[in-house]
């Protein structure tokens, strides 16, 4: 089910909301959130609900174990076994064919004529996200950062929370533990205004901005090999903003939904295209993922504690893993590696870089991110190489059809992303003043018009 679909907006959300607030106890609300989470997820393919339930049970049981045992060996076992199970599930569904294909290529390259299998595996939507949720829960329980819950429904409500289930943000249990504990006493009206405003702004970002750009970008990149230099640049500019508004829009809707149900979900984007350097970019882009990578990969690897070269190595390894998390394709791995190199270079030359005028740094960082998106968007290295070649060597070809409208859309998107305020900057001092209500009404009307025209398009991050 998509947030920007009529079935969600007109049926699922109102029913879920009304029933949720008519329930009085935290336990009943946990149960209801679990049920609705599974309905939301099962609407796509009910078979995979079992997988999520299994993953939930494994992690919950591990949490109970942490409460019971203090012996370090047992606790380590409780850490390793469920994480291994989670990673095996993720590995099977997401990476099995990738591993086979890569292995096959290596063997063929080495001269062995081996045909590797290709299994017909459906990638469950959002598996990367809820696996991360469960793993962070287990690690935080092991570290003693959180006290694992004894309430199965509290935990299952956390894992299957529909607002952040399939495309994040990656909410760690500790980040909403307090709100979850007090769910029975939550005040319906306290954050309702905030929730609605976040949700409508997110809807506007996704439906009006991202989907409009996608209309052109998808069509042009479908024949990337025919594009002219100008066409390739325009397509990638559009994709950069499409990706941002698509994912930031989803995240803002998720945050808004969280507020509507009394849960404060942390922000996931903070105007990343205003970033001045790679480090700043990753503090602003997909914040929940980058902070998880920092806390659960980079720091355990040693972080920057054992000298500069180890810090570079750790940055590179962390970002390679981050790239692989996005998808089972070497283009994602190289995209991660590219950002790892950028982060290492910035670490080495930050003193010099920081002296460059602010405007130049912002544009340069945006362009560096855009080059990364070429790898990210490409389905193969051949496509990435062709796009880079077209962008950097003057090439005759086709431009963007309907380019006036498209360029106008890119300018609006660029202005909002690079200069304008983001959702959390807009919501500060949110009160139901008439001016704001009318502004949100306008946002709702605009989103409705586009949804009626082009239907509900899936969020880009669903594929991860």
């Amino acid at each position, binding site marked *: 089910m998509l947030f920007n679909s009529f079935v969600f907006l007109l049926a699922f959300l109102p029913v879920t909301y009304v029933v949720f607030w008519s329930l009085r106890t935290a336990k009943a609300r946990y149960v209801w959130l679990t049920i609705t989470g599974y309905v939301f997820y099962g609407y796509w393919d009910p078979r995979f609900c079992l997988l999520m339930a299994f993953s939930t049970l494994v992690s919950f049981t591990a949490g109970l174990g942490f409460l019971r045992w203090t012996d370090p060996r047992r606790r380590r076992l409780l850490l390793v076994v469920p994480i291994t199970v989670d990673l095996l599930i993720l590995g099977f569904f997401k990476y099995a064919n990738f591993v086979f294909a890569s292995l096959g290529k290596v063997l063929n390259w080495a001269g062995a004529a081996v045909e590797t299998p290709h299994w017909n595996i459906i990638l469950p939507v959002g598996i990367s996200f809820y696996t991360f949720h469960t793993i962070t829960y287990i690690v935080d329980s092991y570290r003693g950062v959180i006290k694992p819950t004894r309430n199965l429904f509290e935990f299952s409500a956390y894992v299957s929370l529909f607002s952040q289930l399939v495309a994040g943000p990656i909410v760690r249990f500790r980040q909403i533990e307090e709100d979850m504990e007090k769910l029975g006493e939550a005040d319906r009206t306290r954050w309702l205004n905030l929730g609605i405003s976040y949700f409508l702004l997110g809807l506007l970002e996704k439906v*009006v901005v991202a989907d*409009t750009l996608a209309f052109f970008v998808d069509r042009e990149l479908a024949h990337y090999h025919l594009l002219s230099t100008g066409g390739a640049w325009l397509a990638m500019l559009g994709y950069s903003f499409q990706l941002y508004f698509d994912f930031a829009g989803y995240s803002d809707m998720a945050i808004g939904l969280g507020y509507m149900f009394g849960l404060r979900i942390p922000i996931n984007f903070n105007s990343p295209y205003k970033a001045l350097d790679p480090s700043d970019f990753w503090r602003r882009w997909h914040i929940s993922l980058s902070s998880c990578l920092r806390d659960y990969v980079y720091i355990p690897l040693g972080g920057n504690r054992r000298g500069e070269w180890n810090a570079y190595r750790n940055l590179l390894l962390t970002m390679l893993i981050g790239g692989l998390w996005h998808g089972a394709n070497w283009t994602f791995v190289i995209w991660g590696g590219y950002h790892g190199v950028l982060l290492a270079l910035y670490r080495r030359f930050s003193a010099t870089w920081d002296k460059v005028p602010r405007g130049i740094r912002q544009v340069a960082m945006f362009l560096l991110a855009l080059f990364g998106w070429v790898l990210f968007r490409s389905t193969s290295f051949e496509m990435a190489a062709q796009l880079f070649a077209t962008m950097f060597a003057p090439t005759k070809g086709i431009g963007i059809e309907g380019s006036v409208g498209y360029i106008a859309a890119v300018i609006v998107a660029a202005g909002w992303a690079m200069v304008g305020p983001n959702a959390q900057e807009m919501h500060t001092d949110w009160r139901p003043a008439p001016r704001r209500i*009318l502004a949100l*009404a*306008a946002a*709702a*009307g605009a989103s409705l*018009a586009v949804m*009626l*025209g082009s239907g509900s398009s899936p969020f880009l991050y669903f594929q991860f």
Partner: protein
Amino acid sequence: MKRMLRGIALLAIASVVVLVSAETMARLDDAVRMGTPFLASPEYNDLIMHDSLGIRGRPLAQYQKWRLNSAGFRGSEISRVPQPRCIRVAVIGASETFGYYESPGKEYPAQLADSLREKGCYEVVNAAIAGMSLPAAIQLWDNWVSRFRPDIVVLYLPPAFYLSEDPPHFAEPTHEGASPVPSRFALRLMDRLHDRIEYPDFIQRKRVAKSISREIAGKSDDWFFRTLPADRLALFRTHLDSLVTSIRATGAVPVLATHAMRFSDPPKASDADLLRSWRKFSPRATEDVLLAFERAAAVSTRELAQERGLPLADVAGLMTGQTQWFADFTHFDDGGAGVAASVMARVIERLVVPRTAGGRAVVTGYGQSPAADYR
């Protein structure tokens, strides 16, 4: 009390803002995505005009995803004369050819162009008009499409028009100039809402039944086609033959394509509602007769091709009954349009024999000596 009134006023204003914003955005969205002028209120019928040449596409008209070039054909601009060393293929048909449900660029003439482009220099002209009957096609060919000198003309025309109240007839040319686009204001939001609404099956069934009942109310029993009307089938064949003769007279090679439908023989139970919906357009015929007429027209088309030595693209032979390729009774989805295009492409490829590298190509008929040398 005052506070409540204020709240109600705010709610009313907010509702107006939602509607104004939605209408404005719908117009902006159309302008950005499709280049539709912001203040215009186009309709599907604006794509068609009636002038001294008969009924044809309105030059440069556009409505939603449909956009016509300056010659009134769907697709990009074409020159009056084909490019040197290129084969020009015109496709004449009704809405199945013009494209209805397919994504832009996925209607079968566009996919045919994509397929043929890989084989050499071809130009494909989508000369279809939604709702075009065979007599209208003859007029369109004689008065307009033939001026663009196609080398090959694919004919994919629906026979169901021959089951309407009166048989299809030639349109009277109007000498008052092209019918203008009426000046009007319509809410684009309503257009979008109308396109998006999908009624539940039981409501849709009732709507169809009501529509058919209205059409057949008060009709005597002999008004209905309860058996296949042989005279109508013969007329279909006569008109098709006339069109073929007319095309051949210009030196172009006609390719006959049999008309496909989604319904198998017998139709699947799951298609019952759709079959009933189809009858809305030809209420005179029973559902059995509708199906029988389509099948008989396909047979008749094959026979005509055989008798006159014409190339045949047997689209019906391959696609009829294959529900997965249709978006409704006869209109293709993207995949179905691709299949139809590939059937036609194979026939066209066999017609064109490159004579020398870079030299003239020859278009031949089936089993005939080369019919014409081209450029």
